[in-house]
């Protein structure tokens, strides 16, 4: 059975190849069935692999499938090899499972798009890259997947490239991610230089000997890797690309920019947790950055009017949660939240897509309202998603968030301030999510008759994934119920073999006082209730008060609406001084970053090229002169030397 590991990523690749090469000849149905079918089979195999893995002894749950030696000579011994262990098993389940649902959803959502075949090509390529990322058994393979998903993300954000905002958003995502990738590569190089290997299991074995806990090499390496993660997982300071990425089709937002790709940074940190725990300073940075991102993004989410943008900032915020979990060494909790978040955020995005679909592509919530009766399935499923993300007791988000908050408070790396910010963020999350629900589904209808004529529930292919995801959002948390609530914490036990203990701490930290955990849980629930009530009071009962409230807090509202002017700040503080500073420097930036690799060395190179090509005069005797010039010069060098 474990021989089949490589099939999981291979199938989408095959589908991509066939569809990519023959999409002119194949019919739309064939392309779609190939695309969806390949992901479906991958999912089935993933489930089988998972079952098989559970059947093994916990200590033996790490299977490496070496396909072949790739870079065999010299110091760097690298294989194309896939690693199946509890962590990657969970990840491929999430990726193929949620991916499959979103592929099915896309059939309905993209039905009217003329370029739907291209869309499915990119989606399949993405699946391949993402599965390579999570299954790769070394950092280089992970990086290839990392770049692959980045490329697909770029292609899919700019899918409607005739739209300038979409093309710009794609470009922004590309640039920001390249900056992060640079950090990733430096981190990987430092690790290779210090440890001599990039293979995960080998690294884990040699790390304690090769690195000193808290030493500069490990701290630097992990900091750079984390910087790479801030790019991919949209953390401060590189989060700015994600909200713009919503220019892509909604299934893309759900799959890439909520459920899977953006969690790659979290996955990478968890994958290398044995390195990160050796660098307490980095851990602190991660916790603070994650916590700050969670809070700031949540506040921005309060004032957004575009339904997808609210969800985008919510995603940034939730990713901050996961990062915070990693920072306090609660890696299991991070992955747990990653999983539940994949369920409910995919659900919310797909739901918002269904709303947008039924509203004839209107995204502004101020022009919605009262949709509850017209699109009941969408409404119900989105409500479930909202309850899950807000942490309604016993829903999936409740358990995963609670786990993170408890760890933030109690773990050795934790601090009560982290917990406080976390709980405030949870309140904000509840508030803006119910604001979204009330503005969209309740109250007066605020759209015109023209739109009203077309309001309709989405086709089956779209509602079915919503229902499945809603079910998962409800029950997804059950596998990870903590001991405090009488659960077995199965998820934690399952992932335990992958996680490293923090050096200097005992493995379990002794039995803590359950009372404290109950108290914190109670606070969380009450904050949830308060925020819900406030949102209900403002947006359900007294929607007119919102206007006066907005007026009374005009300054803050403006600040939030404009996302703290971060984009403008980056523009003013970074881009403009460079523009004005020096033409030369600007060209370097232009070359290396803005124009990306595609535009190459840009103007300098092109000018040089234009000059130097004139050397080739076309006169054959001139060529002979150059020839002799070379001979004489080199003889001169050899003789004089």
């Amino acid at each position: 059975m474990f021989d089949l590991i490589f099939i999981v990523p291979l199938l989408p690749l095959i589908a991509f190849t066939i569809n990519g090469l023959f999409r002119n000849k194949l019919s739309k149905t064939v392309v779609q069935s190939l695309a969806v079918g390949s992901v479906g089979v991958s999912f089935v195999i993933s489930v089988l692999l998972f079952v098989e893995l559970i059947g093994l002894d916990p200590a033996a749950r790490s299977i490496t499938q070496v396909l072949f030696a790739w870079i065999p000579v010299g110091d760097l011994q690298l294989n194309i090899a896939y690693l199946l262990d509890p962590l990657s098993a969970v990840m491929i389940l999430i990726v193929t499972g949620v991916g499959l649902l979103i592929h099915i959803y896309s059939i309905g959502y993209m039905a009217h798009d003329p370029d739907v075949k291209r869309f499915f090509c990119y989606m399949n390529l993405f699946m391949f890259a993402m599965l390579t990322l999570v299954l790769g058994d070394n950092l280089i393979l992970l990086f290839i997947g990392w770049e692959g998903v980045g490329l697909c993300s770029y292609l899919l954000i700019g899918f409607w490239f005739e739209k300038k905002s979409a093309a710009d958003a794609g470009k922004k995502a590309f640039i920001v991610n390249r900056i992060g990738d640079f950090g990733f590569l430096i981190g990987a190089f430092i690790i290779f230089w210090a440890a001599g290997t990039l293979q995960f299991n080998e690294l884990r074995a040699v790390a304690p000997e090769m690195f000193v806990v808290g030493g500069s090499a490990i701290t630097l390496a992990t900091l750079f890797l984390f910087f790479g993660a801030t790019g991919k997982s949209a953390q401060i300071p590189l989060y700015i690309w994600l909200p713009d990425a919503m220019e892509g089709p909604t299934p893309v937002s759900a799959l890439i920019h909520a459920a899977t790709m953006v969690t790659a940074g979290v996955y990478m940190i968890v994958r290398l947790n044995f390195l990160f725990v050796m660098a307490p300073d980095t851990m602190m940075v991660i916790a603070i950055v994650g916590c700050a991102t969670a809070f700031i993004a949540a506040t921005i989410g309060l004032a957004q009017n575009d339904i997808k943008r609210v969800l985008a900032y919510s995603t940034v915020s939730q990713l901050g949660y996961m990062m915070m979990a990693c920072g306090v060494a609660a890696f299991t909790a991070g992955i747990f939240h990653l999983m539940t978040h994949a369920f409910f955020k995919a659900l919310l995005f797909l739901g918002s897509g269904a709303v947008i679909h039924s509203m004839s592509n209107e995204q502004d919530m101020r022009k919605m309202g009262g949709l509850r009766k017209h699109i009941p399935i969408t409404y119900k499923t989105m409500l479930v998603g909202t309850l899950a993300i807000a942490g309604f007791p016993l829903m999936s988000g409740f358990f995963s968030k609670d786990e993170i908050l408890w760890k933030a408070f109690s773990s050795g790396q934790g601090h009560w301030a982290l917990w406080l910010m976390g709980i405030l963020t949870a309140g904000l999350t509840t508030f803006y999510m119910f604001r979204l629900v009330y503005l969209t589904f309740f109250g007066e209808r605020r759209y015109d008759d023209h739109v009203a004529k077309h309001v309709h529930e989405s086709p089956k292919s779209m509602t079915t994934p919503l229902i499945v995801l809603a079910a998962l959002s409800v029950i997804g948390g059950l596998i990870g119920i903590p001991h405090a609530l009488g659960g077995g914490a199965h998820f934690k036990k399952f992932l335990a073999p992958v996680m490293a203990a923090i050096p200097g701490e005992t493995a379990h930290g002794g039995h803590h006082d359950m009372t404290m955990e109950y108290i914190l849980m109670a606070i969380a629930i009450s904050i949830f209730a308060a925020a819900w009530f406030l949102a209900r009071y403002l947006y359900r009962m007294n929607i007119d008060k919102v206007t006066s409230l907005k007026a009374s807090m005009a300054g803050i509202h403006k600040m939030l609406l404009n996302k703290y002017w971060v984009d403008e700040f980056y523009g003013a503080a970074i881009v403009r001084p460079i523009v004005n500073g020096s033409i030369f420097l600007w060209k370097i930036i232009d070359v290396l970053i803005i124009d990306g690799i595609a535009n190459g060395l840009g103007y300098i190179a092109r000018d040089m090229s234009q000059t130097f090509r004139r050397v080739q005069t076309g006169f054959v005797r001139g060529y002979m002169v150059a020839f002799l010039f070379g001979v004489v010069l080199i003889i001169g060098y050899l003789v004089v030397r």
Partner: protein
Amino acid sequence: MINITPLIPELFLLVMAIVVLMLDLFSSRRTVVVPAYVSMAAVIITGFLVFKFGGDAVRWGSNAIFVADSFSQFFKVIILGAAFLAIGSSFGTADRMTHHRGEFFALLLFSTVGMMFLVSAKELILLYVGLELTTIPLFVLVAYQKTNRASSEAGLKYLIIGAASSAILLYGLSLLYGYTGTTYLNEIAQKTAVYFLSHGFIPNAEGTTDLVGMGPAFSVALMMIIAGLTFKLAIVPFHMWAPDVYEGAPTPITAFLSVGSKAAGLAAIIRIFDGMLYAFSHDTMPNDSWGTMMAVLAAVTMVAGNIIAIRQTNIKRMLAYSSIAQAGYILIGVIAASKLGVASCGFYMFAYMFANMGAFAIVGLYAEKTGKKNISDFAGLSKTSPIIAALMTMFMLSLAGIPPLAGFMAKYYIFAAAIEAGYTWLVILALLMSVVSLYYYANVVRIMYMVDSDNKHHIIPSFPAGLVLALTGIGVLLFGILPQSILDMAYKTASSFIF
């Protein structure tokens, strides 16, 4: 009696070339198929013979004059591969010729034989004859389109620069002969090694020698040989002929020039410098002067080739500058002067063969169908011929060195060898330049995929052209993902050298 069994592959190909020439006399002039297929078959059989009769050497007295070692076998495979692919993509070109079709293929085979001799030669006269047997048929082939001004211009330029460079090479060889009193490479190696081990590197004016006693003449000889051989590789500043000749020559010949003649020249350079003069490199790396000088040549070549390629509009000319730049990368492997260096050169050439032959095949195919040769003419190709466009993308990305294609592995090995040898600065420059190269390689891809045009040309390759594209496409992909077997082979070739 001299044992000539190692020569059997070359002799066979020679006979077949004459057979092809004869076939043209007797077969109908209407068709190009017979001589072309016979040539392709001959090349394949020669490939088998190369392995069948490998390992031995032709000796004159105690000195080997022609060796069929694993190193030469490896390069002969590359050369024969290039010849096979060139013939395969020549059908269209040859079809439009009014006469002399048989000669076209015969000349190609003669040139191939010359290259095989060049790769195996261990004696100066044989080396020179092999070199000229490579070049003279190519003069004719380059100018083969008789009514085409560009083609005849390319012929003239190639002839003048080529003949002058071989005169310069010859002058160097004559000095080397005078210096050592022998034409056998292994005797030359012994004598120079003895000399240099006792005197250090190149003798200065005051240095006395126990050979002929000519001091700086030796460096002059060396340099002239370097110039004559790097001319084949199109190393700056001995590259000026390449863009013009590549642009003017019939496309399959351009492809053959850029791969076959480069591989042969490379093998000769490796034989002379890494093999014969190993004593220099061995004792004084990496700060010896010939190493530094060659490193500077490689650096200048990479910079000039890549930079100038950016502004080219004609795709053949762009590929010409690209192949100049590629030669710069390859030279890094020679400079590394180690087993890994030789192996990486071989692998690079192997990977380069697939990508370059494939790219030129598509260029030729496209020009045949549409008569257009500019990069911008490729707009919209992804819509009309998605498979051709996908293949072209693969070739471009392989040339640029993007994983997981063969070009990436090739660059990786070259760089690993150079770092091992201590040329880190050269590797950094090469990396930078490969970023630059991405500009013009990716530009082709961008134009094919992202630029709309009303181009309606659907490219359907003929069977042989399709075969060429399939083989090159598979090669680029397969040896990027599974390079192991070829690498092992390339690594074995290095065992002919004492490092």
